[in-house]
C-alpha cells in the first residue's frame, strides 16, 4: 500500500487550493466549527476540512491541535480509526499547519479530549456511513444490514472498501458538503480500538532521534539568530553600536527600534556577535519589585474590585460572626517556571512576500495572527507549522521566538533559526502566577464546617469553589498587578487553590479531632470524588497506616476536581532530622476522567503530573531582585529528578458511562496538598506555603 506522505508533498509556498488539487484524487469531508463554538462544545456544522480518504484506502485527518508529548496525535488517530473501523496504521494525522488544518483553538485546558475528539469521531462516523450507503447501492442491499470491518464492507462473497468509495465520483459532492446533523458515534461499550493501551504513534522517531523538533528544523541558507535582551525587566535601550559585530565574518546585525539582533552561519558565531553587541549597549533601568516581599506586594497592588468566582451559598459573613470556633490562615504560592526541555524555538523563511514559520506553540492560529499583525501582512500570507515539540505545560501559548525569527529573516533576507537559551527561557518566558490565598472558616457544634471564606489574590479562579458541603461559602479571585509576566501553566490556579483548600481542611479536621479521610467524606456529596478518595486510601492502607505511625514520618491525603475529572492522592513523607525537609517516599493516586480513551497514555499523564507537581511542592520557586531572575538556571532552580522518584502507584478508574474528559492537568492538583498534610501529620505544624520548607517539630 502506497504512502501518500502528505507532509513532504507540500512545500511552504503551496496554497490551500493547490493542496487539494494535489490530494484531489480522493475525497474531502468537512467537519469543523468556529473556535468560539468549539470552545463551548457546540455540535459540528460549518465547512472545514477534517478528513481525506485516499484511493489507497489511507485516511488523512487534519487537526489544528498540536503534539507536545501529551498524546493528542495518537488519541485523535485512535478516534478516527475507531469510527472508520480501520486499523490504526491506515490513519495519518496532519497537525497544526495553518494552511491546511481547521482552527481547533489552543491546545490547552484539557480541551482536545472533550472537544476535538468528538469532531474527529463524527467526521469518521459520517465517512463510514457513506461507505455503507455506497456499498448498499453496489450490492443492492439495505445499508442498515451491512457492517464495515477492517475498512471494507463484505457481502455475499464481494467486498467494497474505502478505496472503492474514494473512486466513486458522485460521492465527492456529498463529502464536500456540511456534515449532517445527528451523527452517532460508537458507544464506549462497543469500542474496538479506543479504550485499549496504545503506544504513541511517533515513538520510534523519538527514540532514534530522527524526529525534527522545531529547534531541529533546517532550511537551505539558514542562519542562527540571537536577540539582544535587556539586563533587567523594564530596562530601556539608550544606545548600541552594531559596528563591531558587523565586522565579524558572516555576521549580520540588525536594529529595528528596541529590537536588536544578529545572525550568523553558526550558533557559535551568533553568540560571539551578540557578546560584541552587548558590550556596546547602554541601558536605562528602572526600579523593580523583589521576591522578598512578593506577597505583601500582591496584597498592596490588589484590584479594588472584588469579583466572586464561584456561586456563594448562604451568608458567610453572618455565619462567621456567629461562630464560636473560627479559624484562619494565609497561603503563599510563589512563581514557578514551566521550564520545558526544549526552550522556545522557531525557524522563519520568506518566499515572495509570504512567510512560513515552524515553531513550538500550543496556539498556531494565534501565532499566525501575531505574526501577521506585527509584520503588517494578511493572515493568508503567513503559514505556521508546529512540529511535535519538546514540552509546553501551558508555557508556549505565545509567539516570541516566531516573531524574532521572522523579523530577523526579513531584515537579513535569509531563513533564520532562533532558539532561546535556557537563561532566556527562565527570564523572558512567562511564569505560573504567584498566589496569596486567605481562608477563613468556622466549625459548628457537630464538628462540621459551617462557613467558608476563600480569597485568591493574583493567581486565578480555577477550581476555587469548594467541593465540600458547607452551608455558607464565599470564594473570590482578586486580580493584582503582577510584578512578573504571568500566564497559563498546567491546570492554572487549580493547583494553588487546591493546595490552600486541602491543607486548611486538614487543619479543620484536626480541630474537629476527626481523621482527615472521615472529615472529608462527611462533607462530600460528589460521588466521583468519594470514589477516587476511597480507591486511593484503600490501596494506600490509610486506616492501618494511621495506626502504626513511625517517628519522623507522616501520611497525608488530598482530593479535588477540575475539568470534569476527579483525583485523590495519598502519600508518606520522611522528615530529614537535620534539615527538617520532607522526602516523599510513597504516593498512591487515583484518577477518574470518564471513559478512558488510551489507558497507556493516561497513565503516563498521571504519573508525569504527580512528579511534576513534586517540584513546586518541595523546591521550585522563582526568585527575583532588581528586575532579574536570581535563580534562573537548572543548577539553582531545582526541578524533580530521578532521585526524587518515590514508590509510585496510579489507579485509573474507568467510567465508560461518562463522556471522556481531558487528563493532562487535573492529576497534578492533589500531590502538593497531600505532601503538606503528610508534613503536618509528621510535625504537628501546619503547612501554609509552597515550596514546603524546613519546619519545626
Amino acid at each position, binding site marked *: 500500500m502506497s504512502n501518500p506522505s502528505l507532509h513532504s508533498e507540500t512545500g511552504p509556498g503551496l496554497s490551500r487550493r493547490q493542496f487539494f488539487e494535489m490530494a484531489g484524487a480522493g475525497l474531502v469531508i468537512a467537519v469543523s466549527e468556529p473556535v468560539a463554538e468549539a470552545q463551548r462544545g457546540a455540535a459540528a456544522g460549518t465547512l472545514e476540512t477534517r478528513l481525506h480518504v485516499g484511493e489507497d484506502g489511507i485516511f488523512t485527518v487534519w487537526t489544528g491541535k498540536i503534539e507536545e508529548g501529551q498524546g493528542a496525535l495518537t488519541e485523535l488517530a485512535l478516534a478516527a480509526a475507531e469510527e472508520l473501523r480501520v486499523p490504526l496504521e491506515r490513519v495519518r494525522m496532519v497537525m497544526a499547519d495553518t494552511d491546511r488544518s481547521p482552527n481547533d483553538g489552543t491546545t490547552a485546558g484539557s480541551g482536545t479530549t472533550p472537544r476535538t475528539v468528538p469532531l474527529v469521531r463524527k467526521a469518521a462516523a459520517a465517512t463510514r456511513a457513506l461507505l455503507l450507503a455506497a456499498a448498499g447501492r453496489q450490492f443492492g442491499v439495505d445499508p442498515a444490514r451491512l457492517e464495515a470491518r477492517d475498512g471494507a464492507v463484505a457481502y455475499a462473497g464481494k467486498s467494497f472498501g474505502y478505496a472503492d468509495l474514494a473512486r466513486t465520483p458522485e460521492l465527492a459532492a456529498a463529502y464536500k458538503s456540511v456534515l449532517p446533523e445527528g451523527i452517532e458515534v460508537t458507544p464506549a461499550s462497543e469500542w474496538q480500538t479506543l479504550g485499549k493501551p496504545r503506544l504513541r504513534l511517533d515513538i520510534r522517531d523519538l527514540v532514534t*532521534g530522527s524526529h525534527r523538533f522545531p529547534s531541529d528544523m533546517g532550511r537551505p541558507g539558514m542562519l542562527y539568530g540571537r536577540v539582544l535582551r535587556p539586563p533587567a525587566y523594564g530596562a530601556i535601550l539608550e544606545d548600541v553600536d552594531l559596528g563591531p559585530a558587523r565586522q565579524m565574518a558572516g555576521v549580520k546585525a540588525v536594529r529595528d527600534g528596541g529590537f536588536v539582533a544578529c545572525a550568523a552561519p553558526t550558533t557559535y558565531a551568533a553568540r560571539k556577535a551578540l557578546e560584541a553587541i552587548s558590550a556596546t549597549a547602554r541601558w536605562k533601568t528602572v526600579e523593580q519589585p523583589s521576591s522578598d516581599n512578593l506577597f505583601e506586594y500582591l496584597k498592596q497592588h490588589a484590584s479594588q474590585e472584588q469579583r466572586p468566582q464561584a456561586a456563594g451559598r448562604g451568608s458567610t459573613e453572618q455565619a462567621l460572626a456567629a461562630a464560636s470556633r473560627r479559624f484562619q490562615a494565609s497561603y503563599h504560592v510563589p512563581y514557578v517556571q514551566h*521550564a520545558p*526541555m526544549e526552550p522556545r524555538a522557531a525557524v522563519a523563511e520568506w518566499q515572495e512576500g509570504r512567510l512560513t514559520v515552524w515553531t513550538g506553540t500550543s496556539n498556531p492560529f494565534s501565532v499566525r495572527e501575531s505574526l501577521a499583525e506585527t509584520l503588517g501582512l494578511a493572515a493568508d500570507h503567513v503559514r505556521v507549522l508546529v512540529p511535535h515539540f519538546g514540552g509546553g505545560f501551558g508555557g508556549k501559548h505565545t509567539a516570541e521566538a516566531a516573531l524574532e525569527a521572522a523579523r530577523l529573516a526579513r531584515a537579513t533576507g535569509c531563513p533564520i533559526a532562533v532558539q532561546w537559551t535556557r537563561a532566556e527561557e527562565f527570564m523572558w518566558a512567562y511564569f505560573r502566577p504567584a498566589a496569596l490565598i486567605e481562608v477563613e472558616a468556622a466549625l459548628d457544634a457537630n464538628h462540621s464546617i459551617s462557613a467558608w471564606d476563600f480569597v485568591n489574590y493574583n493567581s486565578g479562579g480555577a477550581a476555587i469553589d469548594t467541593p465540600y458541603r458547607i452551608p455558607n461559602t464565599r470564594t473570590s479571585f482578586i486580580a493584582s498587578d503582577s510584578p512578573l509576566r504571568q500566564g497559563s501553566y498546567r491546570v492554572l490556579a487549580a493547583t494553588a487553590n487546591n493546595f490552600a483548600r486541602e491543607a486548611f481542611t486538614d487543619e479543620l479536621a484536626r480541630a474537629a479531632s476527626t481523621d482527615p479521610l472521615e472529615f472529608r467524606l462527611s462533607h462530600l456529596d460528589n460521588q466521583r470524588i468519594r470514589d477516587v478518595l476511597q480507591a486511593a486510601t484503600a490501596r494506600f492502607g490509610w486506616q492501618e497506616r494511621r495506626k502504626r505511625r513511625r517517628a519522623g514520618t507522616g501520611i497525608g491525603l488530598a482530593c479535588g476536581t477540575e475539568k470534569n475529572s476527579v483525583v485523590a492522592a495519598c502519600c508518606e513523607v520522611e522528615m530529614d532530622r537535620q534539615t527538617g525537609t520532607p522526602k516523599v517516599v510513597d504516593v498512591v493516586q487515583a484518577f477518574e476522567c470518564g471513559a478512558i480513551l488510551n489507558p497507556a497514555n493516561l497513565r503516563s499523564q498521571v504519573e*508525569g503530573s504527580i512528579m511534576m507537581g513534586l517540584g513546586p511542592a518541595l523546591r521550585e520557586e522563582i526568585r527575583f531582585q532588581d528586575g532579574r531572575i536570581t535563580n534562573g538556571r537548572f543548577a539553582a532552580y531545582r526541578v524533580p529528578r530521578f532521585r526524587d522518584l518515590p514508590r509510585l502507584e496510579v489507579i485509573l478508574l474507568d467510567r465508560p458511562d461518562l463522556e471522556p474528559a481531558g487528563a493532562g492537568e487535573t492529576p497534578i492538583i492533589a500531590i502538593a496538598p497531600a505532601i503538606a498534610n503528610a508534613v503536618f501529620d509528621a510535625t504537628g505544624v501546619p503547612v501554609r506555603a509552597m515550596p514546603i520548607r524546613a519546619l519545626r517539630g
Partner: protein
Amino acid sequence: MASIRFTVNGKARQVETEPDRPLLEALREDFGLTGTKYGCGEGQCGACTVLLDDRPVLSCITPVRAAQERRVVTIEGLARDGRLHPVQQAFIEEGAVQCGYCTPGMILQTVALLAAHPQPSDAQIIEALNGNLCRCNDYHRIQAAVRRAVGSVGSKA
C-alpha cells in the same frame, strides 16, 4: 580555527572550526545530527548527552577539540541496519516517552550505564540517570524502561 578529526557514529569526520566550540553545536550544525539536544548549555540537564569513547559526556560543555582522534556516538548511531538498540527497544516497549526531547540523552546515558554495569542495582540506575532531566517527569516509565533494558542487553551479550 583548528582542524578536528574524529569518528562520528563509525564514520571518519573532519571539521575546520573553533576549537572551543561546543561539540553539541558541531554535531547539530555541521553534521545535521539533530538528535542531540540543547537543553541548558551548562551541563545541568543531560539532553545533550553523547558517548565519547563509550563514556557519556555532556556535549554542550565539551569543546569540540576534546573529541580529537576519538569516537563519538550519538542517538543516530545506535541502531544497526535498521534494527534498534535494545535500550531504544526497551523505551518503546515501556512507552517511556512523552515529548521525547530528553529521550536521546536518557537512552545514551542508559547505554553507557549498561556497558559499565551490565546488571545495575536500582540505586545505580538512579545515580546514573540523576543528571538527566525530563520535564514531562516521565521518570517512573523511564526507570521501567531501563530495568527492561537490563535484561535484554544482558541476554544479547
